[in-house]
């Protein structure tokens, strides 16, 4: 049985993850999932591949704490987060968040909350390969603003 958080180089199967999360929980009436994938273009340049680095230990702890926060804020039952690291290509899946609840509103909100939180507070870093060479991806001010709308004023960018 997988835990709530996995950081892995391998791809993930959303259907398998959702099935494991729902199991035989008859309270569940809504499952909301988000999947992030690698684009072939960013900040005006073509992207041929992307290397994802993380801080082993801290990354898992940070996401576990975010899930605890989500369970306190929203009327939800279960959460599963999978984030890939290592070398990825355009079209590859990068991250998934799945949330279960009785009604859709709570799982929609919790899913967005977790992604907003993860984008600005989980220690991952992306390095892109472009025709002009490799470059580290810049953090976005808009991601800090997305987290602020949940009442969390933390600066990343």
């Amino acid at each position, binding site marked *: 049985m997988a835990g709530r958080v996995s950081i892995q180089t391998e791809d993930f199967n959303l259907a398998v993850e959702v099935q494991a999360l729902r199991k035989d929980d008859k309270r569940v009436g809504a499952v909301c999932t988000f999947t992030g994938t690698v684009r072939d273009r960013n900040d005006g340049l073509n992207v041929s591949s992307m290397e994802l680095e993380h801080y082993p230990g801290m990354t898992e702890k940070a996401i576990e704490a975010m899930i605890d926060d989500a369970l306190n804020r929203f009327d939800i039952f279960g959460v599963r987060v999978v984030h890939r690291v290592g070398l990825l290509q355009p079209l590859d899946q990068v991250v998934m968040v799945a949330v279960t609840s009785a009604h859709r509103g709570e799982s929609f909100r919790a899913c967005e909350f977790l992604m907003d939180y993860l984008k600005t507070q989980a*220690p991952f*870093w992306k390095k892109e390969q472009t025709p002009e060479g490799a470059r580290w991806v810049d953090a976005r001010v808009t991601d800090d603003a997305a987290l602020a709308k949940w009442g969390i004023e933390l600066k990343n960018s």
Partner: protein
Amino acid sequence: MRVTIKYFASIREAIGRASEQRETAATSLAGLRDELLAAGPAYACLGRGRAVRMALGQMMSDESALLAPDSEVAFFPPVTGG
């Protein structure tokens, strides 16, 4: 006291190592950052005005966080996962 310092992403590349153990007289992350800045040009990436984030004990922290013996400290750029 002795602390372990980890570096990630562009900061790891600029400093040229992923981690080091260091004997420090500093009591806070700010003091440790000052010591490193004085230790050589490789640490210029930690300069004030640079976008540097910090962790102490694997928790996001600010410069006022206090060191303890065997603390694990990390310096890294703004995060870009997801």
